[in-house]
């Protein structure tokens, strides 16, 4: 939210002067604020309730920043090939349960610590083995390629999953614009390195011991697959920072950590690039990281997953995990002849 529209002399309610009906659970309150924002209603009415209610939650030691990152509605078409009958994970859960160690290792840390993250200006470079290196500025992320919405399952390596409507464009389209040379065999991705903005990059304790910047990679055929997607939004609006604003990868047949967030560099390369979790624990996380119910993580089973849907704590369901997260028709051919037990 930008400037609060408060001026001296305009009568304001005192922080303690509230009726019972104003005491709203935070999740409801956040949703409501999102709705207000999505409708584009005036900032004044929204910021009044922010102030009043933030005061209440301070009592419980809840140090959520009062200024939420501002997301804005996007214009896009729905890609009919990627819609689903599955129940979507509600937006408030998608944006409050994140692994983004740059902002802390707890699931709530990214939302707590990333609200002041600056995404504009931004530069995304496509370089390396390409004939036409590209640099996308912030505005280009939304303009260069027409945006579409795709709903994908997201399967975390920690055995929980969500169903999320992303807005963005196909990675292949962007790579084609840069015109890869015949030497290009892999695609390497890199997250922003900015220790001033990302507490996890300043401090090993906050950042969980990952060596930053976070890097990820795909083979060129994987990157050119129709499923590989660069998301700039979710639920019809620009991405909040905890979900990887302003632009992130979404590769739905792979474990979530492959879907690198807040990307600044896409490099076409000859050799298999290093990837962050593989560097940290090579016996637990491989380069491919395809969702595979038959190959367990050394410390837990990957045969089933906890699907985070709507509703309360006990409403989640444990469902069998599907090979390639259910996207085998599109991607199984990429791995013909590859031993998936060795190349996990």
């Amino acid at each position: 939210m930008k400037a609060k529209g408060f001026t001296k002399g305009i009568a304001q309610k005192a922080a303690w002067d509230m009726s019972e009906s104003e005491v709203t659970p935070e999740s409801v309150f956040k949703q409501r604020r999102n709705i207000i924002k999505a409708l584009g209603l005036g900032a004044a009415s929204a910021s009044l309730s922010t102030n009043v209610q933030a005061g209440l939650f301070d009592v419980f030691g809840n140090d959520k920043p009062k200024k939420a990152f501002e997301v804005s509605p996007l214009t896009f078409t729905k890609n009919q090939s990627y819609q689903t009958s599955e129940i979507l994970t509600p937006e408030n859960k998608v944006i409050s349960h994140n692994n983004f160690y740059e902002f802390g290792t707890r699931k709530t840390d990214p939302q707590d610590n990333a609200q002041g993250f600056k995404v504009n200006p931004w530069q995304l470079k496509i370089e390396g083995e390409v004939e036409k290196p590209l640099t996308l500025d912030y505005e280009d992320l939304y303009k260069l390629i027409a945006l579409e919405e795709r709903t994908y399952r997201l399967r975390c390596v920690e055995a929980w999953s969500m169903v999320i409507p992303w807005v963005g464009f196909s990675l292949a389209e962007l790579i084609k614009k840069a015109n890869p040379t015949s030497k290009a065999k892999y695609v390497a991705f890199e997250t922003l390195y900015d220790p001033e903005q990302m507490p996890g990059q300043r401090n090993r304790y906050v950042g969980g011991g990952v060596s930053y910047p976070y890097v990820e990679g795909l083979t060129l055929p994987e990157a050119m697959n129709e499923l590989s997607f660069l998301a700039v939004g979710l639920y019809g609006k620009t991405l909040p920072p905890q979900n990887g604003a302003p632009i992130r990868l979404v590769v739905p047949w792979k474990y979530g950590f492959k879907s690198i967030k807040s990307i600044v560099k896409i490099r076409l390369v000859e050799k298999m690039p290093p990837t962050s979790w593989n560097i940290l624990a090579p016996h637990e996380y491989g380069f491919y990281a395809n969702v595979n119910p038959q190959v367990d993580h050394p410390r837990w089973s990957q045969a089933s997953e906890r699907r985070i849907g709507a509703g309360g704590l006990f409403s989640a369901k444990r469902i069998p995990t599907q090979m390639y997260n259910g996207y085998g028709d599109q991607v199984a051919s990429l791995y013909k002849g590859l031993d998936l037990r060795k190349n996990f």
Partner: protein
Amino acid sequence: MRVTPKQLFWIKGLFHLVALTPIVFLVLNVFSGGAGGDPVQYIIHYTGIGALNTLLITLLISPIAKKMKWPWLMRTRRLVGLYVFAYATLHIAAYFSLDLLFEWRLLGEEIVKRPYILVGAVAYLILVALTVTSLKKLMSKMGRKWQTLHNLIYLAVILVAIHFFWSVKSEIIQPSIYIGLVIVLLSFRWRKLIGFFKD
């Protein structure tokens, strides 16, 4: 320092309050959304750390009582020990109900297949045995055997520290600090611990 029975009563009341406060915070945090959109992992970690913290406090009681010459403090140890069991039970209940969603088969498979869960499960069995035998009647009935059994707490705290260290994905700083604390607390008793091996 001498303490009257009435004072001890209030001291114990204070200990109960201190032990229960984190649970109140957990409930508030979960219901206010402060624990995130999917608080399952949060609840499991929170109660697990709660159990470990309480366990370290029980191990701190006798060194403090000796050093400060506060014999009455020893009379709070049973109470604190029972909270270790309570937190550990919440930890396992949260894992089984919220994460595994009551799948018995998966629980059995995971205990057998995952060494860090097996280590935690063994520690929990020790806590169960100590809790069951914490009744005063049993204490006098068991005599010396009681003390032998309750020395297993030292094994339990080592297993719990290993369980914690082994369970994390990458952030090993916190579990390493806990392992350090366990070593310090056990070092207060090194004579006793060496004695086990001499027998």
